[in-house]
């Protein structure tokens, strides 16, 4: 059976503004894709350890030597809006 998902909730979590048409389409399509993906739950794998990376490496460290990085100008060069050497965004906190 297709999986029933709460599209509004997921879109909010994903920070995606969707049109009503998109919401309906994704609700149907994701339900079908998840139904297919449910197949993974058929596999009995209780004591199998999960794989996060195909060639596991741990504690990959380098020397803590400071190196030159991007300048302020380079880092801001692609920003949609800049002010005083910083990224400018619409207001974050409520106004009184």
């Amino acid at each position, binding site marked *: 059976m297709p999986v029933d998902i709460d599209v509004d909730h997921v879109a909010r979590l994903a920070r995606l503004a969707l049109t009503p048409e998109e919401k309906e389409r994704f609700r149907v399509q994701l339900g079908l894709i998840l139904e297919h*993906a449910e197949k993974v739950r*058929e*596999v009995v794998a209780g004591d199998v350890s999960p794989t996060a990376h195909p060639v596991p490496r741990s504690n990959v460290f380098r020397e803590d030597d400071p190196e030159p990085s991007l300048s302020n100008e380079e880092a801001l060069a*692609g920003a*949609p*809006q800049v002010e005083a050497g910083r990224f400018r965004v619409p207001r974050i906190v409520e106004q009184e």
Partner: protein
Amino acid sequence: MSEATGELCDRSAFELAALLRSREASASELVDSAYRRIAEVDDRLSAFLLLNEEDARNTAARVDDDLGRGVYSPAVAGIPLALKDVLCTKGIRTTAGSKILEPYIPPYSCTPWERLAASRSVLVGKTNCDEFAMGSSNENSAFRPVRNPWNLETVPGGSSGGSAAAVAAGEAVWALGTDTGGSVRQPAALCGVVGMKPTYGRISRYGLIAFASSLDHVATFTRDVRDAATLLSAIAGHDPRDATSLPEGPRDYTEGLEGGIRGLRIGVIEGWLEMDGVQPAVRDSVRAAIDRLERLGASVEPAELPHADYALSAYYLIAPAECSSNLARYDGVRYGYRSEDGEDVVQMNMRTRGEGFGDEVKRRIMLGTYSLSAGYYEAYYGQAQKVRTLVIRDYERAFERFDLLVSPTSPTTAFRLGEKSGDPLAMYLSDIFTIPSNLSGTPAISVPCGLAPDGLPVGFQIMGRLRDEATVLRVGRALEQDLGLILRPPLLDALAA
């Protein structure tokens, strides 16, 4: 000097490097030849999103200068190269095929391009692709779909379809793409070129725009297997800027390439060959190639990967989960597109993403967000990661008996534009034979093995043990030499006429 085989841009990099060294051709002539071809065909193919003409000509002139002074030039110097537009190139626009990155000019280069640029490789341009490398047909490019040079009504495959089409049509001599679930091998198969995905971590991912980090591989498109070995040698090797990069240094993968395959044990994934949905012409062509390998002295026996049936399902949980996390960075704040709407920062984020991402990307972000959300994580993502372990164990078990496993690369030849674009699940199935090697990180190559009766190329997949690119390349080379195919899309014959 090139009357016999037409344009310079249709030759292999190996032949061209020899012509450069003997000074029978110049790098400037090579780059001219590539741009001439682009001018002739790219309005029909749309393989490129950006041409890097001035810069490419300058680099070619420097290579000619060096050669004129007798300075040693590496095997990649002066050879026209194309890069998929998910690989960052400093100062050169990089869009990932997405509106959200349409204005993006990276302040740094990816490691593979940095290495090739240092060897005076000539970057012809950036190639079209499915948005953020998500797709199997190139119809998900936010700009325009790529067409297959073998038949303009069909797709080149995806997501690296622009790179595949460019190499097939002689717009570049070789190219880089990325392979997360088959995105190099499948388009290579559909366009009749060689696509090689090495071991996970063999080529640095630094500067690759991330889709699914535990599955993403940089991979190569070339005219033949020898060129694949040469290009891999130029870009592989440890990179301290990628924590998942393999610790081994560079090596020469052309060494031992022509050693033959006598005594190698080859396992045929019979279950895949006989699966419903595999075109009879694909099955026949792959079986004929297997017979050739046997005649060349390899032993051939049936093999199986019992959990491969679950690999596709696991992939379509893991890849979207990693995608939803990786693509969280596109928020309209630091670079790329920003929606003008939005009273506050959250509204701005949501509208930027709603307007900037295309359909497939949104679908995968939604899927990944759902499967990682509270209450579902264990059932979906956690279980998919366990299935991934089982797929890896299948390979390990098979490689106790066999040196290599073989199969078709794709169940079908190139399909028509629009044929699968309305049905995400049907589209996902076109990667069914390539996805398992991404889950396991093991090397795999697609080598053309013939043309189907519909005139479209068929790809033969050779999969090897972790870190054993050398054997994969050796078998691919033996097969292509035995086949002796001359693959030339009809589009190019029409030009000559």
